[in-house]
């Protein structure tokens, strides 16, 4: 990336004259280091996780020839839909530098509410789903208010939530302990596959949207006299996105077709990524995660920003739980428990969302879920025991967090907190 802005009257070298020799030297060193830093931790953060994914897929493809098949990859997409949806919300709390340990329990409880209303109370699919989402939103509002107004660490509030909502799940399910979902309005969430034509149409629309928005923004920047990326870089980025989309659709079309669950997950990622990068509110989320005191002094209502994030996170967790129930066709006492919570948090962290707040992208939810889902799926194919699965997943998580910590240390060493 070019460091010098076109139109800037005095680039670094001339500026070094009033700034003295020290200032000039520092500027030069920064620009050199800048390039290295970007490579190590900055712009290529998501490329890093893509590389990890390539390595994992290569290993499993070599180990088992059924891994890289259309059937299995479609299964993988279905497997990650629920945890990926929960992770989208987790990214938001992580951006604040907070944590939500209750997402697993909330997903189970919301699914139980939806299932119970649908099966036992005879509610329609949409009212039941909306009720489940409302339960999630209400829980988020409660936990967010407790965490921000009373100043209780979110870790503790949501840890209490983890226990409490699991109890509520058992209470909702009652003595039977299981509710089987039969309403097609709910089960079709995870059970719908689009025809090949629709799949290709979706791909075409996505690619056109990416290309048009990228070119449109570039044209507006040019018109405004601002610096733009070189054409080659834009072409490369749009081309890579198009290739990825086409490959994905080709794969799922070779099996049952484009799953609705995957469309929902990717749609949510795009929507929430737009929320945090294109709206005032999203800017405030990053600001609060980076320096809450600075945000407060800038007149941002920090408590409101935080509370809304907790509401969104719990609502997305609820939706993830409903997706999981739709796939399982049932809600039982173990819904939302087990490793779901940890995987939902581990995914974004593996994909480079910082645990320290203020850095990350919602795409991390998708990529992280893909990494964790691939490990789990691949090891299932190899018929490895749970013991190995847990240890390998733990190892990958630890490596990812270590990378995050190293990146942070390096930034601190360079005087960038």
């Amino acid at each position, binding site marked *: 990336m070019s*460091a*010098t*802005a076109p*139109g*800037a*009257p*005095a*680039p*670094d070298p001339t*500026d070094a004259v*009033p*700034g*003295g020799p*020290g*200032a000039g030297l*520092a*500027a030069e060193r*920064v*620009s050199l280091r*800048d390039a290295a830093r970007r490579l190590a931790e900055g712009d290529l953060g998501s490329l890093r996780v893509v590389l990890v994914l390539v390595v994992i897929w290569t290993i499993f493809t070599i180990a088992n020839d059924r891994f890289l098949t259309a059937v299995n990859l479609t299964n993988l997409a279905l497997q990650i839909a629920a945890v990926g949806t929960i992770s989208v919300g987790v990214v938001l709390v992580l951006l604040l530098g907070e944590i939500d340990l209750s997402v697993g329990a909330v997903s189970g409880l919301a699914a139980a509410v939806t299932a119970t209303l649908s099966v036992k109370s005879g509610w329609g699919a949409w009212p039941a789903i909306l009720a489940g989402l409302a339960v999630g939103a209400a829980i988020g509002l409660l936990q967010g208010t407790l965490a921000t107004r009373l100043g209780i660490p979110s870790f503790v509030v949501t840890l209490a939530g983890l226990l409490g909502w699991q109890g509520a799940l058992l209470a909702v399910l009652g003595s039977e302990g299981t509710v089987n979902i039969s309403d097609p309005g709910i089960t079709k969430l995870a059970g719908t596959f689009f025809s090949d034509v629709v799949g290709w149409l979706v791909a075409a629309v996505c690619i056109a949207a990416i290309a048009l928005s990228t070119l449109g923004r570039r044209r*507006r*920047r040019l018109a*405004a*006299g*601002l*610096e733009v990326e070189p054409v080659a870089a834009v072409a490369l980025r749009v081309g890579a996105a198009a290739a990825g989309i086409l490959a994905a659709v080709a794969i799922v079309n070779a099996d049952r077709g484009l799953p609705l669950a995957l469309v929902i997950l990717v749609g949510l990622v795009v929507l929430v990524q*737009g929320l945090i990068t*294109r*709206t*005032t*509110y*999203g*800017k*405030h989320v*990053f*600001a609060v*995660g*980076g*320096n809450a*005191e*600075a*945000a*407060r*002094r*800038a*007149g*941002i209502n920090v408590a409101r920003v935080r509370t809304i994030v907790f509401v969104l996170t719990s609502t997305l967790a609820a939706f993830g739980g409903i997706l999981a129930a739709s796939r399982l066709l049932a809600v039982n006492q173990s819904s939302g428990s087990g490793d779901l919570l940890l995987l939902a948090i581990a995914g974004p962290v593996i994909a480079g969302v910082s645990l320290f707040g*203020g*850095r990350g992208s919602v795409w991390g939810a998708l990529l992280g879920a893909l990494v964790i889902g691939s490990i789990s799926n691949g090891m299932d194919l190899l018929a490895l025991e749970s013991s190995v699965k847990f240890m390998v997943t733990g190892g990958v998580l630890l490596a990812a967090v270590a990378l995050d910590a190293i990146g942070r240390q390096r*930034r601190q060493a*360079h*005087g*960038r*907190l």
Partner: protein
Amino acid sequence: MTTETQAGASRAPATDGALLRLRGISKRFGAVQALSAVDLEVHAGEVVALVGDNGAGKSTLIKAVAGVGPADEGEIHLDGRAVRINNPHDSAQLGIACVYQDLALCDNLDVVDNLFLGREQTRGPVRGVPVDEITMEQRARELLDSLAVRTLRSVRAEVGTLSGGQRQTVAIARAMLGEPRIVILDEPTAALGVAQTAQVLSLVGRLRERGLGVILVSHNLADVFTVADRIAVLRLGRNGGEFPAESRHQQAVVSAITGAPEDGGPTPNDEEAIE
């Protein structure tokens, strides 16, 4: 009508010429009386240096004006009108901008995002959606150019990667974005090198040329005498005297700060000012 004709300062004339007038400001933290009946005046196009030893109440006073820590007692007049400042929002509404010593920048955001933090530009019918990055970037460029800031390589550089002087510049530019009438600078040159200090001081001079009232809090008397028009001394939470910023008053200012008689020996802090 006052005779201050600087653009931006002419919109609401003060009856007595003072843009900002503080009267009897008091503030107490538990058992500690941080400020007792402090007065201060700032005129448009004037740099008033607020000096004093550690614990003299400088920070407490500016926090009261900035609304971060409202005063317990006292009156604040803007253009001769009594105003209430209970939170940072009130202060910003009144056209008072404050640049804190810790700068309050978000290191994870770029220069543009920091400049517009809390007042992002948007386009489109819905409030807050979508953020208009292009207008913000253009305005950031214009603002930095108008302040003759040429030290920044890119307005999209992450603020965490900038030097101390650059960060100070961003913080001051940020304060200017709200088109304030009064800018409070808290120790803007602390921890800066010689060249960077000169850059920041010339920036302060440019704020005065624009007709702003500037309150400059500083420990460094050399800086104060370089850039200020008037020096207000705080001592132990009270007014300790006011001096024109002429070099012949240096000894008097030092005495007012330390409370020592004028022939008292210089404290280490003042050696550079006394030369």
